[in-house]
């Protein structure tokens, strides 16, 4: 653990503490609408961090992370509604299911040496197969969706994730912090360095004794399990699940935008990216509506143009550039 924090300079420790305190007191300072945006950004940080471990560290581009999100969400929702199993137990089922799916995907991909973009295509195919399956599977509600009962009398059952906005806010904060800690610990461990070696040059990594199949499986499992936990949160927070939303490729893309914009393979990238993109998205919605431009597609167009501008300005992500500007660069361990 000590090694995991060795990248922190005094300056960046202060910056991190300021962010932490601001997020802790936010519910008492900002209105509910703003708080819901921060919550979404925290969730984006968490999911982005999970995906970043796979792509940013290990170099495996997954375009189908909605699969793990959806599996986690559906598993916990169905266990709760149909069998009365609470999320604190079903979260393990959710993780196991995601790891199972990742194992099949990884087995196909690594066993048969499906590399690079072909691996990415495989991840899309897997997610799409499951989405289409769920769309037509009546047990999980099919395309009409699956719903958790919203009952005000249950709202005190926080242990069943039946809480109010404040509860869900702090849970999202805790998850975002936990994901940062997981990423930091990994980044300073032998496993994390094995990830980096594979990302940089798989052949050289093998020549140095790195078991690339085993390592890639581990990266996939960690990332999938973390994403599934995010799915559990999403199920109990939104109370409704539709394959066309939670299992869609657009969901996968939404997950990966924050870490890419923020900075691939960096610890703070997902955080910075999510806290830029989520407010940007809702500001655009509000802004375009205010000037009467709420036609379908206009938001996506403007959003896309802004993303392109950001990527053109900081090709390695915002965080490496921002860290340099603010003097918050990581210290060599």
């Amino acid at each position, binding site marked *: 653990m000590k090694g995991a924090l060795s990248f922190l300079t005094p300056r960046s420790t202060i910056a991190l503490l300021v962010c932490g305190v601001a997020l802790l007191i936010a519910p008492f300072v900002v209105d509910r609408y703003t708080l819901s945006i921060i919550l979404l950004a925290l969730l984006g940080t968490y999911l982005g961090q999970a995906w970043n471990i796979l792509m940013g560290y290990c170099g495996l581009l997954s375009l189908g992370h909605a699969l793990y999100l959806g599996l986690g969400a559906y598993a916990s929702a169905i266990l709760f509604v149909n069998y009365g199993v609470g999320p604190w137990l079903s979260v393990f089922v959710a993780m196991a299911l995601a790891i199972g799916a990742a194992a099949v995907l990884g087995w196909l991909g690594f066993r048969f040496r499906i590399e690079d973009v072909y691996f990415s295509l495989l991840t899309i195919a897997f997610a799409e197969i499951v989405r289409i399956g769920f769309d037509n599977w009546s047990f999980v509600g099919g395309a009409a969706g699956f719903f958790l009962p919203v009952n005000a009398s249950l709202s005190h059952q926080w242990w069943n994730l039946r809480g109010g906005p404040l509860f869900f806010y702090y849970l999202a904060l805790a998850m975002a912090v936990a994901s940062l800690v997981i990423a930091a610990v990994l980044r300073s461990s*032998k496993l994390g360095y*094995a990830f*980096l070696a594979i990302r*940089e040059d798989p052949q050289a990594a*093998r*020549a*140095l*004794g790195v078991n690339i199949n085993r390592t890639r499986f581990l990266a996939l499992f960690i990332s999938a399990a973390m994403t599934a936990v995010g799915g559990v949160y999403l199920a109990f927070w939104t109370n409704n699940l539709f394959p066309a939303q939670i299992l869609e490729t657009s969901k996968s893309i939404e997950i990966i935008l924050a870490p890419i914009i923020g900075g691939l393979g960096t610890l703070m990238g997902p955080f910075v990216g999510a806290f830029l993109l989520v407010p940007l998205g809702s500001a655009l919605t509000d802004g375009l509506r205010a000037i009467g431009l709420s036609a379908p597609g206009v938001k996506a167009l403007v959003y896309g143009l802004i993303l392109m501008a950001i990527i053109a300005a900081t090709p390695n992500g915002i965080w490496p550039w921002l860290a340099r500007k603010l003097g918050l660069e990581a210290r060599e361990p």
Partner: protein
Amino acid sequence: MTALLEVVDVVKRFRGLTAVDSVSLSVEDGEIFAIIGPNGAGKTTLFNLIAGVYAPDEGEVRYAGARIDGQEPEQICAAGIARTFQIVKPFPDLSVRDNVAIGAMLRAPDMTAARAQGDEILRKLDLFDKSAQKAGSLTLPDRKRLEVARALATKPRIILLDEVMAGLRPTETDRMVGVLRDINRHDKLTIVMIEHVMRAVMALADRVHVLHHGASIAEGAPQEVTKDARVIESYLGMKAAH
């Protein structure tokens, strides 16, 4: 002395081409063994067969008495045979220090220990003052040194060096010769080197094995081999031999 590495009648074909044609050699423990031959003689393919990149079509590779042909590269490295790549393969976006630490973590308990071991090797190879640089920003001679440093960091018993002298200036070659001699004598490391730079081969090698068109044509002490008519012919053509 006993044979630490044995290659027995190894054959490797790529479609119609026989890249390595029934090559046998035996490297003694503690020896510096050079493999020379003109371009396309099959030297790097032979290394790849030993290091597990390819499995031989025929023949065996034995290390410390046990068969290792057909094993994966990471297993062979873990067993104690490290290799460098002729076309260097640094981890470009990582620091020089992290590059070597990744080699060292194979046998180190944690990254702190791996880094400490790596730093020691970086000092030995005159790379320590560049340890914070990204490997991708190094000059070619430094990248060659980094290849050697990374392979050494895995604490091998045998190191396979694929043209680590190429592109070095004569003074740098002499420095590398000194480093290799030192790790051979003091760390008891067996060295198998593919090398075109004869200055280094003559200075270092106990024995030289000559490949031509995938086949062995000579083996012996450097002074003998360089006088061998067939060797001169393979390098310089028919006329020079007469």
